[in-house]
């Protein structure tokens, strides 16, 4: 498969403390969002932050990996819901680092038991390119539970 390239851009006006930015999906135009340092570290105010964008990226990456692992195990999912929480914290030396990414998945999988789902979730974590990357600075945790169908 060819290389896939996706681009985003941000325009930032002024300093970090008092300025603000607008981040755009340059490849697709699918979003245009404002961000400030306050929305990153304190008040959320309907503005996004790098960590929130990473949470969205990790949740999306993981859900596609989980779906393909379940299908490979002969138990294709009907529906999956994934929540990802990214934590940034101050570490030694006063630097800020992304220290954790916590994934919680619920899935409707007619042909899977809890054990199959747990194995698929483990394999999905190993196979998701974003899980592999973010381990450079963060602890990744994954939990998965089966949901009843029809919801």
């Amino acid at each position: 498969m060819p290389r896939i390239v996706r681009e985003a851009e941000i325009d930032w006006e002024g300093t970090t403390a008092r300025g603000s930015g607008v981040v755009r999906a340059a490849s697709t135009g699918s979003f245009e969002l404002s961000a400030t340092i306050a929305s990153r570290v304190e008040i959320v105010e309907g503005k996004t932050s790098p960590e929130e964008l990473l949470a969205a990226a990790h949740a999306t990456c993981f859900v596609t990996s989980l779906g393909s692992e379940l299908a490979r195990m002969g138990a294709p999912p009907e529906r999956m819901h994934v929540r990802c929480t990214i934590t940034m914290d101050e570490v030694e030396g006063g630097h800020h680092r992304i220290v954790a990414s916590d994934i919680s998945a619920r899935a409707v999988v007619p042909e899977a038991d809890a054990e199959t789902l747990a194995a698929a979730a483990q394999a999905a974590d190993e196979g998701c390119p974003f899980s592999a990357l973010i381990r450079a600075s963060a602890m990744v945790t994954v939990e998965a539970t089966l949901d009843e169908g029809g919801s």
Partner: protein
Amino acid sequence: MADRTAHVTWTGSLMEGAGRITSVESGAFGPLDVTWASRTEDSDGLTSPEELIAAAHAACFSMALSHGLAEAGTPPERLDVDATVTFVPGTGITKSALVVRAVVPGIEEPAFLHAAQAAKESCPVSAALASVPEISLEASLS
């Protein structure tokens, strides 16, 4: 400490199914639709994890650079940052390329380039992406 949460729902198989980033904690965006085809072929107006990573990296780098420039006594008027993330299915994320054009009154080019390099190295998203084989930076004053 700062926590941020996002929710995604996927229906059906990887190839024929579709996902939706239903909501994020701040309420700043969503729902955004995603599919495997939009991730790996023509985006067709849909986002992907790699595009979201590009947005996170551009936003993080711009904050780190504006902070570094202000600390050095030369606050920026404006920074335009592009981040381009490359994904190779089966291999993973192989590159994030940062390009910044900046308006910084009163700064000499070497000091600006130094600040840009320091921002690339210190920004938390760069650190989280440290295992990406290549993180490049092109910085210029305008």
